[in-house]
């Protein structure tokens, strides 16, 4: 127990975290790309076409993992922000803010692929489907967090204020989802929805599991990458940052 606490404290020190992130980042990205390649190959060429949707449902193999990740990243961000605010841990502030652009990227992919899927299915690029609408609001939440963080000069204060907003948004997220569903029932929305009630074919599960795992790993890799960059940006004047920069150049020139 004591060991874990100690390890955590050491990891929290900027140079250690930077070294840790630099070492492990390529592994996460590599594993993610490997799993993604297998998953996408299976999704495109191995899984039989759906009798109702034809081949268009192959889009779901990237749409669904990204939709899940967009929510998962938001929850992660809000939890990190809460830890940062309560225990004033600087690394958690950075991790929370590093989550925001990644989550926004997943949300953009979800919206874009959902809309591309919807074009042949609904006949329009956009439908006020409850899931897509919630996703759109989620994108606004992400943009709000990023914009608020960017608009405050003091980096620490910016991260804390934006983190607080993320926490408020987390409370609001289920309410938005519920309200949008109620609204949809009031206005009688579309009949076919993404990830509808239709039973998933057994052959779909394995490729989907691969892409989901790939996106999880990608998230960790990207989080490490962004966090180490933000850390370096904040502590650019420190001696450890200079050591790393000089070390990096000697290694690069050799």
């Amino acid at each position: 127990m004591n060991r874990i606490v100690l390890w955590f404290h050491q990891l929290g020190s900027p140079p250690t975290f930077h070294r840790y992130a630099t070492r492990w980042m390529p592994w996460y990205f590599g594993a993610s790309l490997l799993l993604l390649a297998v998953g996408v190959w299976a999704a495109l060429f191995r899984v039989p076409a759906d009798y109702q949707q034809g081949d268009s449902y192959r889009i779901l193999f990237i749409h669904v993992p990204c939709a899940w990740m967009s929510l998962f990243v938001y929850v992660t961000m809000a939890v990190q922000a809460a830890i940062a605010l309560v225990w004033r841990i600087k690394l958690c502030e950075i991790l929370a803010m590093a989550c925001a652009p990644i989550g926004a990227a997943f949300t953009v992919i979800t919206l874009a692929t959902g809309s591309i899927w919807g074009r042949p299915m609904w006949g329009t690029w956009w439908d006020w489907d409850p899931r897509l609408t919630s996703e759109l609001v989620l994108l606004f939440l992400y943009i709000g967090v990023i914009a608020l963080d960017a608009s405050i000069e003091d980096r620490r204060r910016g991260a804390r204020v934006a983190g607080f907003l993320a926490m408020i948004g987390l409370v609001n997220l289920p309410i938005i989802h519920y309200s949008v569903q109620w609204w949809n029932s009031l206005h009688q929305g579309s009949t076919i929805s993404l990830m509808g009630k239709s039973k998933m074919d057994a052959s779909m599960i394995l490729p989907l599991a691969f892409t989901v795992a790939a996106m999880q790993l990608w998230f960790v890799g990207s989080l490490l990458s962004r966090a180490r960059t933000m850390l370096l940006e904040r502590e650019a004047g420190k001696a450890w940052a200079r050591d790393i920069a000089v070390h990096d150049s000697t290694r690069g020139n050799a």
Partner: protein
Amino acid sequence: MSAPTLPRAAAAMLARDLRLAWSRRGDTLQPLLFAVLVVALFPLALGSERARLAMLAPGAIWVAALLASLQGLDALFRSDAEDGSLEQQLLAPVPLSLLLACRMFAHWLTGSLPLILIAPLLAQLLFLPDHLLVPLLLSLLVGTPLLVLLGSTVAALTVGLRRSGMLLPLLALPLYVPVLVFGAGSVMAAAQGQDWLGAVLLLAAGLTLALVLAPLAAAAAIRIALP
């Protein structure tokens, strides 16, 4: 020596804000004017066909009320931060959340209540059927305080910024979505002959929660956001 008590501090805060609103009555009425303008533009854009306007009326009035509630929100706490009175409120021996709750209440009284009072007039402009007036007024009465509470919590986050510009609407919008959905939705439901009270009750539940949580959250936000 008279120690400050909670009721006395709250009364002082409320009196100050109402007096300030009165001394700048022109500015205070701006949200109202804004809402009237928005509503008046709908028939000009859509034509004066009664049935179509009546169908759009609940949504249009609710959107106007929502946009109007964003007016003045930007300056709600920043004006106090700029002249140093927010510092004094932070240093008062009463909870900041109580003072902020008073400010939010005063903001609703001066900004949203006049709008609710002239809502019947706006409804007439858009030919809202008479039997929908009660759902509209009730939903506004429950919904606008919720908008103010949520909006001022977000405004507290931007208090350290020099100007927030479009940032405040961007931050407030996701929080406003459920209020707009249930607020305008309740009137729509009434128009379709469905049960509309359920949505208003949901709004009321949200209002009760926000009444407790929003001032606390806003106080925490100000402490985080103030430079």
